[in-house]
């Protein structure tokens, strides 16, 4: 048998049909659904009088535009958001799919709920009408975002029409230095490859620094594979993965667990497998980073200065000019001197328990800067409950943070949590696009520890100075 990558193995195990030209029908093991990209898909099913093919493999949760204030139990004020959430309530019921409504403690961001409930398992194919589905690749699952037409296609057929991507290996060797986190790894990779560097590829992240990460950290890394342009990011499963999965509500049990484990242990890239592209970064070369511009590739170590447009080539010169203008920054300015109005800790990138622990470790016994708006939005109701149990919530509240209910919140600002014009935010989310966190809002992407540090000092800060 010819040697295979992990991606090849998962792909081959899910081929329901393959045409001569390589167009494949890929079978989908888990389909995750949220309120923003699914209403038109369910409407399409109704119009064609089609059922959901595999309701048992379909899981829905509202997250993108739910309010994150505690009074949300009384209903959603914004009419359009309410219509979308109501539509999901109804569609979940009418089509008989698994559902975690806003009132359920297990509700949260779809990419946090899936793994937490054991829906995401190694070797699976997982899709969702959301680009950050890449998150689930941390389990060694082939996971990627799809559009609404494809959501409808998966609902109706449990398959996806696909062409195979190429294989790319991103290896992070050695150990990380203190203060450097999974977020810094994933941003640094994008800084290296650019936002289109992964286009056409599925990335497998490997190397000692990746192996050393917890599942939470691995999810952070894979989450942003999409910002690097890749179809999906993958990390081969190992004991860290199995320990995380074991005992979760929908994970296999007993003899099935043993059978699953036997298969999972075959899920790695063979030594002599073929890679179409390889990138190697030394773990020790990665610093805590921040973004300065309006693309996730605009990333630099916190010790650097704002670049000048002339530092770039081609179309990027104009893009950098536009970005600096939008961000209100001057070339040469030290990144660590940029003053911040708002701090957002949350999202499917950094809304898990470990992220909250990292931020709380910096905040313990400190206060946020006067006038700072700071917010923690746990990724799920269960993360929130655990953080309360561990005393993290008290640390955040005493420091001056708002302690919110679970959802996407200010990651994309579809709910009331938004930046106002010109407001500058240190954010643990994944996108710094123009207007992403509110019209004319300015976003600097950072790790949770860096976000906490900025909340205390009032400017972007090298977290290593506070450790």
């Amino acid at each position, binding site marked *: 048998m010819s040697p295979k990558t992990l991606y090849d193995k998962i792909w081959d*195990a899910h*081929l*329901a*049909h393959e045409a001569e*030209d390589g*167009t494949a*029908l890929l*079978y989908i093991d888990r389909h995750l659904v949220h309120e*923003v*990209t699914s*209403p*038109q898909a369910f409407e399409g099913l109704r119009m*064609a009088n*089609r059922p959901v093919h595999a309701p048992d*493999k379909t899981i829905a949760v509202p997250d993108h535009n739910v309010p994150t204030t505690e009074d949300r139990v009384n209903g959603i004020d*914004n009419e*359009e*958001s309410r219509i979308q959430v109501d539509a999901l309530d109804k569609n979940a019921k009418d089509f008989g799919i698994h559902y975690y409504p806003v009132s359920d403690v297990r509700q949260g961001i779809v990419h946090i709920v899936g793994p937490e409930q054991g829906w995401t*398992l190694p070797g*699976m194919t997982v899709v969702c*009408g*959301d*680009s950050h*589905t890449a998150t689930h690749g941390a389990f060694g699952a082939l996971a*990627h*975002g*799809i*559009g*609404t*037409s*494809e959501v*409808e*296609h998966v609902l*109706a*057929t*449990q*398959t996806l*029409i696909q*062409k195979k991507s190429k294989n790319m290996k991103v290896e992070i060797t050695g150990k990380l230095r203190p203060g450097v986190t999974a977020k810094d790894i994933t941003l640094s990779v994008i800084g290296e490859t650019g*936002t*289109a560097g992964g*286009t*056409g590829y599925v990335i497998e992240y490997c190397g000692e620094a990746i192996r050393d990460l917890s599942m939470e950290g691995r999810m952070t890394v894979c989450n942003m594979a999409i910002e690097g*342009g890749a179809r999906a990011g993958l990390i081969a499963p190992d004991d860290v993965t199995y320990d995380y999965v074991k005992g979760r509500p929908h994970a296999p049990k007993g003899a099935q*667990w043993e*059978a699953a484990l036997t*298969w999972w242990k075959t899920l790695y890239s063979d030594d002599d497998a073929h890679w179409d592209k390889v990138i190697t970064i030394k773990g020790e070369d990665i610093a805590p980073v921040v973004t300065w511009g309006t693309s996730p590739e605009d990333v630099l170590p916190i010790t650097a200065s704002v670049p000048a447009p002339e530092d770039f080539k*081609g*179309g990027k010169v*104009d*893009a950098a000019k*536009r970005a600096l203008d939008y961000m209100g920054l001057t070339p040469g300015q030290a990144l660590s001197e940029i003053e911040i109005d708002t701090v957002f800790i949350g999202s499917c990138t950094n809304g898990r328990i470990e992220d909250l622990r990292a931020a709380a470790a910096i905040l313990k016994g400190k206060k946020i800067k006067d006038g700072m708006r700071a917010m923690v939005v746990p990724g799920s109701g269960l993360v929130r409950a655990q953080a309360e149990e561990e005393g993290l919530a008290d640390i955040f509240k005493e420091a001056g943070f708002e302690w919110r209910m679970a959802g996407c919140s200010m990651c*994309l*600002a*579809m709910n009331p949590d938004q930046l106002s014009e010109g407001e500058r935010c240190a954010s643990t989310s994944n*996108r710094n*696009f*123009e*207007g992403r966190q509110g*019209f004319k809002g300015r976003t600097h992407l950072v790790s949770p520890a860096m976000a906490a540090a900025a909340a205390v000092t009032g400017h972007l800060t090298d977290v290593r100075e506070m450790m």
Partner: protein
Amino acid sequence: MEKFQKLTGTAAPMPLVNIDTDMIIPKVFLKSIQRTGFGKNLFDEMRYNRDGSEIPDFVLNKPQYRNAEIIVAGDNFGCGSSREHAPWALKDFGIKCVISTSFADIFYNNCFKNGILPIVLPQEDVDKLMDDANRGANATLTVDLENQTIQGPDGGSIAFEVDAFKKHCLIEGLDDIDLTLAKKASIDTFEAEAAQARPWV
């Protein structure tokens, strides 16, 4: 789905790189549960002032580009989210073809599902078409999907590649779900085998 065969229309130049889905359709407009009506908010934040008045400098607000059906764009067009509202907004506005050196993966796929043809070309061809597009309504492009060519105003012709299956679906206006349901027997067989091999799924 509407068929795409041959298109002759005005091309609007948008040389900016990394035009993302938040620029194409900001999320405040994602709250509809319909597929139509997004065209008026296409490129909303680049196209309108806060008071709703048009920004005259924005390309699609200029008289010669108001009826553009083609966009010639900078690298990595459509990066960002999976929102199909982006192609829905382009379509609703009247854009049927986007030409660039590269597209984000999900956006690229989403275009085909909505009768929009995304064309990937080498930098020098995009540069040439960008020049043509800069000449406004005097310079229409003709995109011929059957023969995979783009004809510029000066008569030159540029060839492009497209996946054969995607091309077929676009030309015939085929519905993917019908095509797949025709292979239901394969799906059923796969499911039966997978239930044996991986019963925990």
